[in-house]
């Protein structure tokens, strides 16, 4: 009955066709962003666009320099990672290795809920408590700033860092820790010297994923960062790549609108770099196993 083989092959081909939807979607996104974003870049000039320090999209002599946005996104992401990663890994170690019973259940749910909270709520609370808090704490005229955005971002990337790191730590064979304990190390030493290095690739992946999320976040930081196209400073009002798009999109027209798509293209490029990085790390991690 040779038809069984052909049937298998055709089923496989059919499934492949459906699976290719993902590839199509990525291509579609890439193509459309290029189609929408490249004209403005060519009109403004790549150098002026990427390196221009001034953004005045609606002035009579419009300027479309997005360096402030790029730098803000980079600094903001970096800051969020700086705060979020240590806490995230610490909490992951606690969750994966120390917490037991109800504590573990509560912590797990807490992290899941944190991950599930809509970013708007983070923004809202940030706006109503964090921004005035920063203003009062640092004696600033206004608290809406890069710092506020960094803190909100750090909180927002925490759940994904914790979850992924915890998964990586969970998948470290229990035998490693047992071996370490049997050699006379304390549990903490076992986690630090054996578990974390063994989960390295997963943890790095979680960080990279956090970077991706931080770069891509829009709604929450729009509400706390002041949103002025300044060059970034910790206590200054700043605008990110994402917020630049979100804030002007609805009123935009003409070259301004096109320039916004160009920003989206730049953002997309950043994300692709981060993704490629992630891909590499995960692949390497797999190979390592």
């Amino acid at each position: 009955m040779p038809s069984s083989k052909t049937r298998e092959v055709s089923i496989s081909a059919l499934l492949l066709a459906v699976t290719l939807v993902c590839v199509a979607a990525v291509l579609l996104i890439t193509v459309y962003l290029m189609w929408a974003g490249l004209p403005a870049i060519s009109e403004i000039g790549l150098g002026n666009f990427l390196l221009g320090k001034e953004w005045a999209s609606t002035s009579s002599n419009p300027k479309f320099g997005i360096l402030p946005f790029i730098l803000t996104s980079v600094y903001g992401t970096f800051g969020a990672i700086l705060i979020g990663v240590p806490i995230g890994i610490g909490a992951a170690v606690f969750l994966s290795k120390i917490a037991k019973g109800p504590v573990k259940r509560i912590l797990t749910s807490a992290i899941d809920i944190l991950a599930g909270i809509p970013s708007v709520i983070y923004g809202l609370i940030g706006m109503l408590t964090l921004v005035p808090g920063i203003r009062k704490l640092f004696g600033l005229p206004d608290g809406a700033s890069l710092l506020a955005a960094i803190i909100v971002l750090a909180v927002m990337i925490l759940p994904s860092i914790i979850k992924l790191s915890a998964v990586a730590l969970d998948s470290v064979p229990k035998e490693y820790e047992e071996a370490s304990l049997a050699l006379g190390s304390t549990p903490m030493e076992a986690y630090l010297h054996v578990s974390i290095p063994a989960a390295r690739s997963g943890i790095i992946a979680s960080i990279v994923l956090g970077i991706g999320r931080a770069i891509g976040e829009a709604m929450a930081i729009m509400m706390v960062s002041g949103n002025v196209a300044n060059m970034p400073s910790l206590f200054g009002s700043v605008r990110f790549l994402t917020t630049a798009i979100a804030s002007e999109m609805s009123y935009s027209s003409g070259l301004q609108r096109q320039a916004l798509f160009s920003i989206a293209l730049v953002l997309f490029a950043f994300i692709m770099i981060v993704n490629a990085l992630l891909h590499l790390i995960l692949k390497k991690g797999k190979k390592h196993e």
Partner: protein
Amino acid sequence: MKQEPIIRCRKLSLWYSKTQALKDITIDFYPNSVNALIGPSGCGKSTFIKTLNRLNDLISEVRTEGEVFYRNTEIRDPGLDVTDLRKEIGMVFQKPNPFPMSIYDNIAYGPRTHGIRNRSELDDIVENALKSAALWDETSDRLRKSAMGLSGGQQQRLCIARAIAVQPQVLLMDEPTSALDPISTAKIEELLSVLKEKFTIIIVTHNMQQAMRSSDTTSFFLLGELVESGNTEQVFSHPHDKRTEDYITGRFG
């Protein structure tokens, strides 16, 4: 006359929450001997050896009664520094579990943990441990390579070397060859007879041939009870207890 026992166990009972896993175990282990623990699955042999290095602590709701002495130290003492105990009583596990680091770092892990940082000292320890585990010839030219690249049998010998490197007095082995093929198994059994010159070895095994071939004493556990314990030849040629005879002749169950 007989030496002092290095581990002395008196009426040790152990419960996991409410089920009793060990019942009044009384047994001595003497220095420089290979001691096999045999018995069907779930008979308590693994639980027993994990009591000796307090690895059962990892499981909550474990409760013990009785006395277990390592030399003059009561192992069950809640105030005991278990890291010290585990330095004295090393362990090798069922599945080879080298850390995902280099061969060198695997062996050096224990000594480093216990504060040895001096490079040349570590080098010596690593070399000696590998030699003791009959692994030096196979690995001396690739100490910096990952231990994960070794074969299963080599990995297990590496684990033995790693345990040796902290210079314990007692080596616990929990079915160290059950994941290995006959050739690797034979190598490790061979190793046992060399290692016993320096250590006291307590080995849990499913494999009665292994117990026969490599141990000096054999203890038969059944349902948490120590049914019989004695010289290996005697236990296998002439067990005192009917249950032991049934088990070793394969007439059990």
